Structure formats: C-alpha cells, structure tokens
C-alpha cells in the first residue's frame, strides 16, 4: 500500500479497511485480519493498526467480540457511508458551494449534469 503524505497513516489504513468492506471483500459479520496480520501486510507498526481499529470501533464499523477477534459490524457498510457522508458535507461541500457561488453556476444546470452523470454510471454498469 502506498501511503499519501496528506492524511495520517492510521486514517489511511482505516480508509483501506472501509474500502474493503464497501467493496464487499470483507462482509458484515465476518472476521477481519488481526492487528498483527494487517501490520505485516502493510509493513507498518502494529501500534498504528491498533489506532486504526480503535477509530473504526468508535465509528461502530467493526466490533470486538471478546476472545474471538474483530468483526465487520452487521451494519458496517451503512456506518461507513454515514461517516463519509458527514465528512463530505462538513469538509468538501462548503468548498464546492463556494465555487458554485463564485462561478455563478446555476443549481438547475448542476441538476442536469448530475442526472447525466448518473445515467452514464448506470449505462456503464449495464455494459459490464
């Protein structure tokens, strides 16, 4: 895994775990790799992975079953989406709105662009 310079490594690892859950590689109720196994995989300090897992537990994305290990929460994918949505609204949306305002972009035009974007995605999905 290549780490970017702009986000704390423990958050990048949390994002990596979340990605695997959203992509369905790690399913709800399934056991996830131990701290040690993930640290070995990613060649990082196990303490960093502990911090990532603690963060994901506080977000209720993963749960600790005593003596058994860590598991993807039943509603893990929903929890990730909720967390990402909140972050998007807090961090990216203000910047986005600011650009709309500065560049005088009509929200109706935006709606059309968004609709065609969605159609595109659906089309690509069908072609697969």
């Amino acid at each position, binding site marked *: 895994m290549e780490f970017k310079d*702009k986000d704390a490594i423990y958050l990048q690892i949390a994002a990596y775990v979340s990605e695997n859950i959203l992509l369905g590689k790690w399913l709800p109720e399934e056991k996830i790799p131990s701290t040690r196994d993930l*640290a070995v995989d990613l*060649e*990082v*300090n*196990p*303490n*960093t992975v502990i911090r990532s897992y603690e963060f994901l537990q506080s977000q209720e994305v993963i749960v600790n079953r005593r003596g058994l290990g860590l598991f993807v929460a039943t509603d893990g994918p929903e929890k990730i989406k909720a967390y990402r949505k909140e972050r998007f609204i807090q961090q990216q949306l203000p910047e986005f709105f600011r650009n709309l305002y500065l560049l005088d972009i009509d929200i109706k035009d935006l709606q059309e662009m968004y609709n065609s974007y969605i159609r595109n995605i659906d089309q690509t999905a069908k072609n697969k």
Partner: protein
Amino acid sequence: MIQIKDLQFGYQKNKPLFKGLHLNLTKGHIYGLLGKNGAGKSTLLKNMAGLAYPQHGKCYFKGINVSGRPVAVLEDIYFLAEELFVPNLTPAQFVANTAYFYPRFNKADFYRYLSILDVDIDAIMDKQSFGQQKKAMIAFGLAANTGLLIMDEPTNGLDIPSKVQFRKLIASVLTEDRCIVISTHQVRDLDSLIDTLLILHNGEIIINQSIDEVQEKILFESYHDTQGLPVLYEETGPRGKNVILKNESGEYSKVDLELLFNAIIIGNQSVLQTLKASAHE
C-alpha cells in the same frame, strides 16, 4: 524497560562521548535511533546491552544493572551488531550450539524466518555473502524472543525484497512486552515502522518523541516561495523549498525524517523548541 541514568563513557581518557546521558525506553515500541557518523549510536547500544561498561552512571534493564551482565539480563536481550561474527557452521548447527542461551528461543520460527528471508538453511554461514549472513543473524535474533531486541543498522547489505520482508518480520514480532531499538541511517527503509524517534547528538539524546507527537507539533511542506510563511527550517531542493513549519492548524503531514534530522543536527533551535514545548504541555 531501559533506564539510562547519567551515563558517562568515552574510548579515550579526555574525550568523553557521553557526559551524563539520560534515556528511558518503554516496552511495546519500536524506537528509531538516529545520529551522525561517530555520534556514538553503536556505543550507546553497547552500553545498553552490557557490552561496554559506563565510566559513570548506570544502565538498567527491567530494573537490573546490566553492567554486571547477569544471566537474567543476557538471556532477555539480543544485540545484532552492525559488523557480524558468524561461525563456520550451518544455521542448524549454530542453533544447536547457541540457542540454549535464550530460554524463549523458537526453532520453528527461526527456520520460518530463514525461509522468508531466502537464506539457505544447509549452507555454511561464514561462506555466504554479507547480506545472507546478516539475514541469518536477523532470523536468529527475532527467534530468540527476547524482551529487548537491539539492531544496529540491520538493513545495511539487504537487497530490496529482503528489506520488504524485514519490515514485515519486524511488524510481526512487536508485542506489548517487547521493545525494539533500531539504529539506522536508512530512514526511508523504516519510516512507517518506527513509532518513536530518538536523536543522539553531541553526546545527548536531544529528541525522544513519538512520531505522532512530532506530527502534531510541526508540518513538513514544499513551496516555491516561502515568503511570509512561519518557517522554522528550510532546505532548497530540486522541486522548490522543503520546509518545516509550526503546526498551528492541526493538519497532518508525513514526517520527513531526513529534513528533521538535518534541522536538529545543524542546531536549529526553533525546531527543537517547538518540539520540546510540546513535551511539557
């Protein structure tokens, strides 16, 4: 786990290397020890392991003075020196002769580590290349399962795939009860493994700080132009200026160990003070 109090040591009478060095290391961490050539990194590690005797002051391991070299200390410390002595034996013969000095030595782990590091278990050790010898001794040191693992420049002589395997092995052997100290000049080999940074300079440990704390206090950035920025230290590189700034906004940036090391060694007080201020908060 390690306590060094008021250590004084030097190889020549009127040239002390350490004049009252203090250091505390706790278990569950991987420490990265940085220092210039000749700063005394290896000498410090030797004092820590009881291989050199302090002229004044004491080095303790789990509360026991190491300079008497009691068995309780020796069997729980593994020291991988930078320059190795390997015998005219195969790894299996070496283990048969030596492993019993380490009560928690795990033979199965040893053979597993050798195969991960691509070392031939039937080859006579001192007939191998330097890199192969080093890897054999790394495997031995990890398998010894000691509370303290000291490695002096462990990645020297390792090829690229071996460095990857080395990082994976180190990540796999750290436990809550173990302390790993690695001295290195190859900071890029280890920068996501080290959780605490030690910098030895002018006979003192001037930095003993977790990487997390360093990140909270200072930022590492690149700019074309630094005018008007609260710069603590800067170096001009091929792609503009590499800069250390005070972290006032709680942002994150990856620690550039080389840049930080240069700033400290040059004696940049503003970087040092910004880091120190954090330690007392």
